[in-house]
C-alpha cells in the first residue's frame, strides 16, 4: 500500500483527486459560504432550529466573530449599523418561530433604508413544514413584503447557491435585506460542498445601462438653469458618488441640500452645502425648493417628509431624477429627465457635460435664509445662556469635540432631528439612523454594529429616553463583547416628538407621552458600563470630555429641557415652503 502512494498517478486519476469536493453538513456549508463572502462578523441569537448552524460555527471561531445579542431585533439593527458604517453586508442569525418574527422590524427598516443585510433563520425540519410544529412560523410569507428577496432551503445541497444569491442580491443594485430560511434537516444533511459566487440572475438587472441621451438632456437643463438645486440622497453614499457630487456642485456652483439619509455625503462645512431637507430640516433648502428652476435629485425617493404636500412641491422646477431603482422614478414626483442609473457613473458623465457657472445671487438667497434661521432658531439652541440644558448645545459640543469625525448613530424623534441638524459631519458614511421606518430602539444596537464595522472610528449613539428603553438590554451585549460605543441619552422625560405634535396640533393634550424614567446611570452600572448624569450647563463640556477619553463603552445621561420643540418645522402634509421658524 505504501508503495502505491509514491507511484505517479495516471493523469485522469490525478485530475479526479484534485476535484474531489469535501463532504460536509449543510450547517458547515452555511459558515463556509459566509467566509467565502468575506463575512467576519455575525450578530445573532441561537435556538432550537438553528442549533446545528451554531454547532458548526464553534469550529470557525477564529475566522468569524459571533456577537451574541440580547434580542433578535438587536441583531438586525446591529447588522444594519455594521453595513451602513462599513459598506459591507451585515449578517444576522436567528432561530425559527419567535426568533424569526423578532427580525421583522429590522428587516423592514433595512428594506426602507436600502441596507445590505443577510439574515439566516433556522426552520423546523422540512417534513414538519405547515404542520404548526413547535416554533414553526411562516417567516417566508411574513417577510415577503419587507425583504428584497427571501428563500427557504430544504436540502443541504441547495445551501451554497442560496447563500451566494442572497449576498449578490443584498449588495447589488439598490441594496436591501435578504432572508435565507434553512430547515433543520438541510442543516444536518451532508453533501459535496462547492461554492461559486453569484454574479448573474437572468430576471434581475441591478445595474441599468447609463442612457447618454438622458445625461445630455440633464446637462442641458443644468446649463440653462438660473436656480439649480441638488437634492442629495442615500444613493450618493451607497454608490460612492460623494466626490463626483461635490465636483459637480463646485463646477456649476450648485447648492446641495441633503435628505436625512444623505447626510455625511458632503461635509457640512463645504461652501456649496446648504443643509438638510424635510420636515425638520433647514429653512433655506426647504423654502427655496419653491424657487428652484432645476432640481437635480440624486439617489433619493422624495419621501413625504422631504416633499411635504407633493402637489405644491418644486412648483417652478424641471426635475432631473438620477435613481438606480426604476420603481422610484415617477413614483412621487414626475421626472422631466429621468436618469435611470447608479449615481456615480451618472454624476461623472454629467460632470463632463456641465459647463462651469456662477449662481452667486441664488447662493446668496440660501445664505440669507441661513442667517435668518441662525438668528431666529440656531443661536438660542446652540448657545443658550440660561435655563435648562438643550439638546442642540449638547450635540454642538459633541460635534466640536469629535471634530465631526465620529460615526453618529441616532434613534428616532426630537433628539434625532436635533442631532442631524447640528452635528457637523465631515466624512461619508458617518450618519447611521433609521430614516424611512423611524424605528425607535434602533440606535443602541446599530451603534454596536457600527463600532464592529469601523472599530477605528469613534462611534457615538445619540438616544432619547423613550428609545433607549426599547432596546436597552443590548447593554449586555456591549459589555460581554466589549464594544466601545459612547452612549448619550438626551433625557427630557417625554416622548418628545409626539409631545411636540400634541402641543402644536392636539391642544397640548399630552396623552401618554410623559415618562417616569429609571436611573439610567444605575442601569448602565448594572451592566458594568460606567456612566454619568449631567443636569447643569457648567458640567456638560467636562462630562463629554470624560466620556470621549474613556476607553470602552460609556453612558452619559444628559437631562435636557422638558418641553423643548424642534424648529424649523413643516406640519405634516403642508407645503414644504410653509416651514415655520417658531
Amino acid at each position, binding site marked *: 500500500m505504501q508503495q502505491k502512494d509514491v507511484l505517479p498517478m495516471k493523469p485522469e486519476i490525478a485530475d479526479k483527486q484534485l476535484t474531489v469536493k469535501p463532504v460536509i453538513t449543510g450547517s458547515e456549508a452555511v459558515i463556509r459560504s459566509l467566509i467565502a463572502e468575506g463575512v467576519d462578523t455575525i450578530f445573532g441569537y441561537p435556538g432550537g432550529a438553528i442549533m446545528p448552524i451554531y454547532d458548526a460555527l464553534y469550529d470557525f471561531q477564529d475566522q468569524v466573530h459571533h456577537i451574541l445579542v440580547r434580542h433578535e431585533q438587536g441583531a438586525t439593527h446591529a447588522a444594519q449599523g455594521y453595513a451602513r458604517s462599513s459598506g459591507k453586508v451585515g449578517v444576522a442569525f436567528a432561530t425559527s418561530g419567535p426568533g424569526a418574527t423578532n427580525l421583522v422590524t429590522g428587516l423592514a427598516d433595512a428594506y426602507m433604508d436600502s441596507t445590505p443585510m443577510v439574515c439566516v433563520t433556522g426552520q423546523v425540519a422540512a417534513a414538519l413544514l405547515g404542520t404548526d410544529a413547535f416554533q414553526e412560523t411562516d417567516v417566508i410569507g411574513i417577510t415577503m413584503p419587507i425583504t428584497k428577496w427571501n428563500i427557504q432551503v430544504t436540502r443541504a445541497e441547495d445551501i451554497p447557491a442560496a447563500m451566494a444569491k442572497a449576498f449578490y442580491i443584498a449588495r447589488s443594485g439598490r441594496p436591501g435585506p435578504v432572508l435565507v430560511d434553512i430547515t433543520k434537516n438541510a442543516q444536518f444533511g451532508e453533501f459535496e460542498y462547492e461554492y461559486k459566487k453569484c454574479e448573474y440572475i*437572468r*430576471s434581475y438587472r441591478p445595474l441599468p445601462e447609463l442612457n447618454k441621451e438622458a445625461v445630455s438632456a440633464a446637462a442641458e437643463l443644468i446649463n440653462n438653469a438660473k436656480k439649480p438645486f441638488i437634492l442629495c440622497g442615500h444613493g450618493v453614499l451607497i454608490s460612492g458618488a460623494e466626490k463626483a457630487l461635490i465636483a459637480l456642485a463646485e463646477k456649476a456652483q450648485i447648492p446641495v441640500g441633503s435628505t436625512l439619509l444623505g447626510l455625511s455625503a458632503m461635509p457640512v462645512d463645504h461652501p456649496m452645502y446648504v443643509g438638510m431637507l424635510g420636515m425638520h430640516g433647514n429653512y433655506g433648502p426647504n423654502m427655496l425648493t419653491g424657487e428652484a428652476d432645476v432640481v437635480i435629485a440624486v439617489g433619493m425617493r422624495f419621501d413625504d417628509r422631504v416633499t411635504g404636500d407633493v402637489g405644491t412641491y418644486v412648483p417652478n422646477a424641471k426635475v432631473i431624477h438620477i435613481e438606480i431603482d426604476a420603481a422610484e422614478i415617477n*413614483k412621487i414626483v414626475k421626472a422631466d429627465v429621468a436618469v435611470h442609473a447608479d449615481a456615480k457613473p451618472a454624476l461623472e458623465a454629467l460632470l463632463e457635460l456641465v459647463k462651469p457657472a456662477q449662481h452667486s445671487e441664488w447662493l446668496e438667497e440660501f445664505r440669507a435664509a441661513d442667517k435668518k434661521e441662525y438668528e431666529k432658531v440656531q443661536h438660542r439652541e446652540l448657545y443658550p445662556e440660561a435655563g435648562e440644558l438643550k439638546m442642540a448645545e449638547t450635540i454642538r459640543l459633541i460635534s466640536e469635540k469629535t471634530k465631526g469625525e465620529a460615526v453618529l448613530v441616532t434613534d428616532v424623534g426630537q433628539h434625532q432631528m436635533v442631532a442631524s441638524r447640528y452635528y457637523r459631519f465631515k466624512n461619508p458614511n458617518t450618519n447611521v439612523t433609521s430614516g424611512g421606518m423611524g424605528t425607535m430602539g434602533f440606535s443602541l444596537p446599530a451603534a454596536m454594529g457600527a463600532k464592529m464595522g469601523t472599530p477605528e472610528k469613534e462611534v457615538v449613539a445619540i438616544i432619547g429616553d423613550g428609545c433607549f428603553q426599547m432596546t436597552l438590554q443590548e447593554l449586555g451585549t456591549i459589555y460581554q463583547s466589549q464594544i466601545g460605543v459612547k452612549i448619550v441619552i438626551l433625557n427630557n422625560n417625554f416622548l418628545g416628538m409626539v409631545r411636540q405634535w400634541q402641543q402644536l396640533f392636539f391642544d397640548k393634550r399630552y396623552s401618554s407621552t410623559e415618562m417616569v424614567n429609571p436611573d439610567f446611570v444605575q442601569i448602565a452600572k448594572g451592566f458594568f458600563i460606567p456612566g454619568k448624569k449631567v443636569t447643569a450647563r457648567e458640567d456638560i463640556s467636562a462630562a463629554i470630555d470624560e466620556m470621549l477619553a474613556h476607553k470602552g463603552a460609556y453612558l452619559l445621561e444628559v437631562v435636557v429641557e422638558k418641553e423643548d420643540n424642534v424648529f424649523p418645522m413643516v406640519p405634516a402634509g403642508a407645503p414644504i415652503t410653509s416651514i415655520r421658524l417658531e
Partner: protein
Amino acid sequence: MQKEYTVTVYTEDRIGITNRITIIFTRRGINITSLTTAETEIPGVYKFIITVLSTREKLDKVVGQIERLIEIHRAFVHEEEEVVYQELALYKISTRSLHTGDIERLIRENNARILTITAEYFVIEKTGHQQELIDFIKKLEPYGLIEYSKSGRVAIVKWSRRFHEHLKELQAEDAEHGL
C-alpha cells in the same frame, strides 16, 4: 378614472411568486378580478394575466414595483383596446334537456360546443368575453344548469413585436452563463 386593465407579468418558476405579485396589489388596495397563469413556450418562464379595476396612474407604479422583484422578467399594463382576449366557460346541464329541440339551436347560435355527454349530464364549452359567457348562463338556466365554471382572461398584446424572441434570448443568455 377607474376602469378595467389587463396586467401581464413574465416570471421565473418559483414557489410563492403569485404571493409576491399579489401583495403589491393588496398594499394599494386594488382588487384582482381575475388571474390566469401558466408556463410560457419557454420552460421555466411563466406568464401571469391579471385583470383589475383601477387607474392607469396607480397601475404604472404597481407594475414598476412588480418589475423590481428579483424573479420577475417584465410587467406591463394594458388598456382594454390594447389586448385581444378570451375567457373560457364550462356549463354542466342535465341530460334530460337534450330531448327538447331548443338546446341544439342555442349551442349552434352561440358558438358553443358539447364536450361530453353522460346519462345524467352533459358539458358545454364556450369561449368569449365575460358578459357573453354570463349571458349564456341565462339562456341555459331553463334547461337545468347544474354547474358553471369560468376561467380568467387569456390575452395577446396587439403591439407586441418579439416577446417570443425575447424569451428565447433569455434561454440563450442562460447558456452563456453556464446555467
